């Protein structure tokens, strides 16, 4: 590793690892999250020349692919989950931290993976529209439409969950105080 590459990679790590780590921690258990961060930055090191001027969306998109590969590998390891197929893909990772708002957690599980990812990038990872579009590899116009639809679907799913599981709503009210 040349000194300049190492320096550039470490500077990149110092600046963006906390955001990539937070992204992974919200979606997977703590040990795997750290492993994901290292994997992402090793990929970045191999492809330093390809990094765009604003590297965060590139790194988050990379983390997203690493997590997806991890999920696929996990599925392959279990014949049972293999049969469950797409249904399992929409479930959050078992080691991911619990969402304190129970009704919201149930509503998110009813969304497609694409909708959920879009909403979480916006609400939890606090990305602006340009960075979200770059992370998801779409135009800003497409992003606006997809985000609008995803919010609408989440609102509908939430209303349904609160009707079907009033006890989840009660827990939510406790959490929100």
């Amino acid at each position: 590793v040349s000194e300049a590459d190492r320096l550039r990679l470490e500077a990149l790590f110092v600046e963006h690892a906390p955001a990539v780590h937070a992204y992974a921690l919200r979606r997977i258990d703590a040990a795997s999250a750290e492993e994901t961060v290292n994997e992402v930055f090793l990929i970045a090191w191999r492809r330093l020349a390809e990094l765009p001027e604003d590297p965060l969306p590139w790194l988050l998109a990379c983390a997203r692919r690493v997590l997806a590969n991890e999920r696929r590998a996990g599925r392959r390891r279990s014949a049972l989950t293999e049969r469950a197929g797409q249904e399992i893909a929409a479930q959050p990772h078992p080691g991911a931290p619990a969402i304190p708002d129970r009704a919201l957690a149930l509503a998110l599980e009813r969304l497609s993976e694409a909708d959920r990812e879009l909403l979480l990038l916006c609400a939890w990872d606090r990305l602006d529209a340009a960075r979200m579009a770059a992370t998801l590899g779409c135009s800003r116009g497409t992003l606006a439409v997809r985000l609008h639809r995803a919010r609408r679907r989440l609102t509908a799913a939430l209303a349904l969950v609160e009707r079907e599981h009033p006890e989840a709503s009660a827990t939510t009210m406790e959490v929100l105080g």
Partner: protein
Amino acid sequence: MSDVLERLRAADPLQGRCEAPSLVALRERLEDAVAERRPSESPAGRPEMARRRALALGLTLVVLAGLALALVGRGDGRLSLLARAYAATDPAGGVLHYAWSSRLVPAASTGTLYVEYRGEVWRSGSRSRTVTEAVLVLRDGHRSVTHTERVTEVSGRSERYAYYDGHSISRGLARTARPAGLLVCTALPACAFSATDPVSALHSIYPSLHQSRGSRDVLSSAGTPIGVRVYLDPRTGDPLRVVTRFAADLPTPSSTTVFRYFRRLPLDAATEADLRMPPHPATARKS
């Protein structure tokens, strides 16, 4: 519908509680990856085309390395303040030479009024020489001065050292739980920045800092009772002043460290001599 996004934001399971990941683990993975690559890159038996490609890649890397170094040196804004600050603590093949003075003020309950430190460091790669003078001032007016000098060479998870404090000299190999040279400075940053090598402390704490809102030259910590503010040269990222404060209810020290100078020197015969421990004064007198 905006309520849904607000509700989602409020349900963030992390709520800002996210520690910076360890750079040490990445370095270890990087070393493993380089070691794995090496056997397949042996030039023996490599076809001509592959050799040409390797040559072209090498030239490209040299050009990129030059550009990256020029970029870091110039600090022209493409690298953030944090990245420039971090790069500034790396000797990068030369020698970092810096001197600081600091004042450590312990919690009110102790008998110590304050401790003043003056230090000078030469650092190159895994080697460093640190000279410090500490003046301890007690509340009853008593003062004591201690002079220490330490030469270290870090290798993997151990540190070879030579040390003397004006009375005794010791040499040895210290094994550390984590790679040597990295300080656990989040526990007591005031001590790390004052009593030991502040740049080493900065190097390990930088991953948890961020640029203060509305400032061009300040990095600070957030989300912990420990407050660290690092004032930098906005162009080069060189550290100028470090201030550490704890929350008022914690009985722990605070400190202010001022860098008297911070410069980069080439690694030559003169700086090699600066990196070596001079003979102990007692030995010098005997000879």
